[in-house]
């Protein structure tokens, strides 16, 4: 190594140190928020999306049952308002056509309507039930609707390897009411900024569930989507896998596709 190279390396490391300095002055809370915001904003601009999903429910004895449904989402770019989403069930056949429409809010309760096809009835439902199971699965309602950045406050913990990647480990605390969790610990990779794993801690602050995100695929060169989400309840040994089909983006969905009056016109 020549003198010049040593000089150059020194300059570089000083510069990179300087560059890193603002991060040192950040509190863990700020850094945690930044990691979450970077992850959330990597998805900004997707507009709308549709996907089919199969939910496989497994009880402690390993017995399986499954449900299939069709998911569509409309992005609301304003971070102070949540996205709109629609779930339409296709199996089990006795609930075929049942649909759930959600207008997510940040801290206020979400607006939710349920459509019951046998009576053709639209029912506004209470969204207080954040921590209850979603259609008998190990996913709670809040696990689907609480992906909005500002629904949590954050705290940065550490960086560590996660599989082949490096991950930022960030603790997050629900800011909305009626959550079943005191905290969640999330692993967000430092390459694509996607969530790889979440641990959920119950109201007694003991580890309740673990959610692993797998089979990430990139759409339109920008948007990452996990196609396999495996949730395991560590207290009951029950588990639920969500297996997604291909996503479609830019389908042309509008606000009018996410109104209660459309629920009876979905099939």
């Amino acid at each position, binding site marked *: 190594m020549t003198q010049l190279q040593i000089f150059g390396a020194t300059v570089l490391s000083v510069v990179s140190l300087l560059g890193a300095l603002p991060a040192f002055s950040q509190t863990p809370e700020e850094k945690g928020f930044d990691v979450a915001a970077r992850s959330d904003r990597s998805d900004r601009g997707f507009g709308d999306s549709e996907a089919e999903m199969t939910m496989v429910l497994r009880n402690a004895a390993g017995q399986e049952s499954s449900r299939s449904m069709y998911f569509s989402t409309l992005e609301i770019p304003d971070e102070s308002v949540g996205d709109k989403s629609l779930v339409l069930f*296709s*199996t089990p*056949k*006795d609930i075929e056509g049942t649909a759930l429409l959600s207008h997510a809010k940040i801290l206020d309760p979400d607006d939710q309507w349920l459509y019951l096809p046998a*009576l053709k*009835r*639209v029912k506004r439902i209470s969204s*207080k*039930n954040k921590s209850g199971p979603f259609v008998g699965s190990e996913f709670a309602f809040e696990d689907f609707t609480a992906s909005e950045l500002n629904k949590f406050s954050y705290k940065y913990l550490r960086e560590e390897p996660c599989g082949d990647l490096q991950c930022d480990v960030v603790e997050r605390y629900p800011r909305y009411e009626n959550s079943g969790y005191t905290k969640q610990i999330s692993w967000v990779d430092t390459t694509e900024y996607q969530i790889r794993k979440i641990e959920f801690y119950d109201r007694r602050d003991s580890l309740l569930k673990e959610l692993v995100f797998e089979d990430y695929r990139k759409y339109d060169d920008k948007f990452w989507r996990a196609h396999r989400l495996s949730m395991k309840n560590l207290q009951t040994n029950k588990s639920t896998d969500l297996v997604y089909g291909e996503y479609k983006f830019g389908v042309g969905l509008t606000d009018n596709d996410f109104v209660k009056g459309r629920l009876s016109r979905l099939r």
Partner: protein
Amino acid sequence: MKDTVRQLILGWLPALILVAGAGNAMAADSGWDFSGNTALQLRGFAQDALWPEQNSSDAEVSVSGEWEVRWRSDDGDQRASFIPFARWDENDEERTHLDLREAYWAYEGDPFELLVGINKVFWGVTESVHLVDIINQTDLVEDIDQEDKLGQPMVNLAVQQDWGLITLYVLPYFRERTFPGLDGRFRAPLPVDWDDADYESGAKDKHVDMALRYSHYFGDVDVGLYYFHGTSREPRLLLADNGRELKPFYDQIDQVGLDLQYTQDAWLWKLEAILRDGFDETFMASVAGFEYTFYQVNESDADIGVLLEYQYDERSSQEPLTTADNDVFAGVRWSLNDAQDTAVLAGVVVDKKTSETFFNLEAERRFGDSVFLELRLRAITNSEQDEPLYSFSRDDYIQLQLSRYF
């Protein structure tokens, strides 16, 4: 003979179900979708029938099938639906019947939709009585809870705006309410000759009825408001000339209906009200109450909901008979939130003045992927001879229904 029929049905039904179940290979995302269900229903009655000509059997077997054919165009703008329904009942020939629940074509533009054909429409928010729901006629032979409806021919235009949904219904043909026959349970002392009705309108069942409805939500409040002009879905039952039957008479009515729900925390506050210019007067009726849910009771996955509703109806005895005139409904809903969607709803409706009481229990659970079992228990107590439910007072029953979906 009847026993032979019963054996035949019980013996052959599983095979029939299997055959019907074989047709489910059609992919949901293609243009066509075939589905439906076949069901075996068993009813057991606690007492002998009240009226002499009613069937003396304390058990009743019936079989039903509903087949759904749906289509959507490649661009998604057009869809069609064809849903025939059929029931065979061993005792009551009027309950053995066939209906087209849906048979329509619809074109979806933005922001409107046009639908032409037979369809089913539900309006309302309350649980104990569906006061504002008026588009479809009740298929009363199916169930006395009046939640089963006959398909209604219509031209329907729906326009969605930021400020709400406007729907216009033109209803060119009227469906007569079905009633149990001479052999059937749940009937008045005389059977209703329901397919020979009289009408106030000279156009009879060809009178073109109209309805216009607005629905939307404002924050936590959901609201629906409509105006209906046309043939009353509720008949007055008059003694026929032969003196051996009742004849339905359908008046022309004008009706305004309102439904409101305020959703706050775990509370659902509900109101339905109608104002009807009926046969000989203008009267109002309403039902109001709440549903409060305790979520994840005792740290389980189960929810328990508590329901309370008050029913009021000021109509005179000249108008079609109602039981929901001054009654309190109290109920409990227990949802296990398990993979089998197990749920139980139990309730009583008590008339405040006469103490006439209607008890109802409904329980349901899925077995495997496609078999659904429903249990119903219904009973009437404290019914005196001059009260509206007296005719059904010895029709307490338990019903088991096993449905196979495909």
